[in-house]
Each structure stands twice: as C-alpha cells, then as structure tokens.
C-alpha cells in the first residue's frame, strides 16, 4: 500500500469521526413515553433527512417568547408513504403537533401526528409513540421503548 493511500485512508477516518452523523436510535433512548406534549405553532423549516426527518416549528411560550421546537419524524420515504408532500408544509403554516418530549431537556420531541390548522389535514409522522403491543421493526426509524 502506497504512502498516499495510507494518508488518504487515515484522513477519511479522521473526517468520519469528526462528522456529526445522526444515529439510528431507539425511541426510549431519546424520548420519554410518559411525557406526551401537544404543540401549536408555525412551521419554520422541514428537513427531509435520513434516517429521520425533522420539522422545526416556532411556538410561543406563555410569557410571549418564541421557541423553535425540533420534531423528529420517520424517514422521508416513510413520510411519503403516509401522504406527506413538500407542499403540505409551507413555512409559516400553523400546525398542531402531538408527540413525546426528549429526555435531554431541550425543545425537542418525537412527533406522532401533525395537523394542519388551515385544512384540518392530519399527517402521521411515522413515529412509534407508545403504541402497544411492540411495534414491528422497519419503517418507523425508531423502536418503541
């Protein structure tokens, strides 16, 4: 193996270690199934990423401040199968989201449903929630508890 190849391999390894890759995690590791929340706010961004999508919603707190919540969903392919389309989620649209609070104390949650206030259309986020019995593995991108 040439010196250049070794240097390239080491560099790629270091680069990979430094990148903030999103892990495919279990529901229980990141979210608390005992803490259901419902948020009402406006969409600021939708990130169609793998292995989870992320919806960002601006929500007013009781004291009038605006907090941007990050809501994790299933992967884009799973969302598409459930009827999600990019045009359904314009920036500024009012939505009501059900989900489960993250364990780390941040404004992050696992979304189960997203309801578009203007039309009443309800979209399933493909997240496992707390459904019983145990979820079949696969498209949710997370495992219930």
């Amino acid at each position, binding site marked *: 193996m040439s010196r250049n190849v070794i240097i390239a391999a080491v560099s790629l390894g270091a680069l990979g270690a430094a990148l903030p890759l999103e892990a495919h995690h279990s529901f229980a590791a990141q979210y608390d199934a005992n803490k259901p929340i419902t*948020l*009402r706010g406006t969409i600021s961004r939708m990130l169609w990423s793998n292995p989870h999508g992320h919806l960002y919603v601006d929500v007013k707190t009781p004291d009038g401040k605006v907090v941007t919540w990050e809501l994790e969903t299933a992967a884009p392919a799973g969302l598409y199968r459930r009827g999600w389309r990019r045009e359904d989620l314009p920036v500024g649209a009012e939505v*009501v989201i059900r989900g489960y609070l993250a364990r780390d104390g941040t*404004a992050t949650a696992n979304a189960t449903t997203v309801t578009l206030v203007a039309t009443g259309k309800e979209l399933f986020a493909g997240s496992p929630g707390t459904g*019983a019995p145990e979820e079949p593995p696969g498209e949710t991108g997370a495992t219930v508890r």
Partner: protein
Amino acid sequence: MVVTLVAAVSMASAAQAPPDFSGHWKINQAKSSAGATGNNAKVSFPSELVVAQQGGDLRVEIRYPRTDPVIAIYKLDGGEVAVPVPGVTEKAKAAWEGGRLVIAAQRVVSTPFGNFVTDTREVWSRSGDVLTIRKTQSSEGLAETETAVFEKN
C-alpha cells in the same frame, strides 16, 4: 308475593352491581381500533393491565413494553388520586356510570418552555373475558378517541 318481590329486588340489585375488572388483561391488537396500536397510534394504550378491584379501590398495574410499570390506585367513589407516573404530575378520578367505569385524568408535563396538559377520559366496560377501554385524549383543542380491546390472560 313476598318471595316474588324479594326475587325481583335481588335480580335488580344484581343487574345494577358494577362489574369486577380484576384480572390480568392483554391487549388484542387485531380487535382494537386502528389508531390504538402500532406505528400510527393516535392514542396510547398499555400492552397489559393487572387489575385488582377490592372494596372501594381499583389497583391497576399499567404495563407498556420495555418500561417500568406504573401502579395506579383509584378510588371508586370519585375521589381524586395522584398517579405516580415518573417525571410528570397526574391526577385522576374514577367513578361508576351505570355498568361502566369512567377514569378521568389530567397529566401535566413541565418544561422550561411551559407546561403541557393532556386530558384523558377512559370508559371501561367488561363482557365476560373481554375488557374494552374507550379512551379520549385531548390537548390544545384537539381530541382523539380510540378503543382498545383486552382479553383475559
């Protein structure tokens, strides 16, 4: 005539006696409504319930997959009780409505960004070895109702 009257009163009392929910119950996903279980669940239900009904109390061990069970002890006279769900505040009241038991609860999740309140109303009914729970969950003006069917283990 007295015998007939006594029998009639006895039968009426028996008809009005509340059901006994005691037992170990397991959810039947196939018989439950579509939004009660699985990846598209709108309303969450436990996978198992272990119920002991005695005197004026209903002790319910609520089991979800891969998590510690919660034990709720409801007063059947409508008195308010605290349900020891970790990390949240939950208060509940249970009362009979005819042959059905209604459990109304409010759960508050406190965060640095405000409190989140979810109200639930469960209606329990029993027919033989089948326990049916119809649950309505509401928050932020949205309400969803789903039905779960449990069978005796």
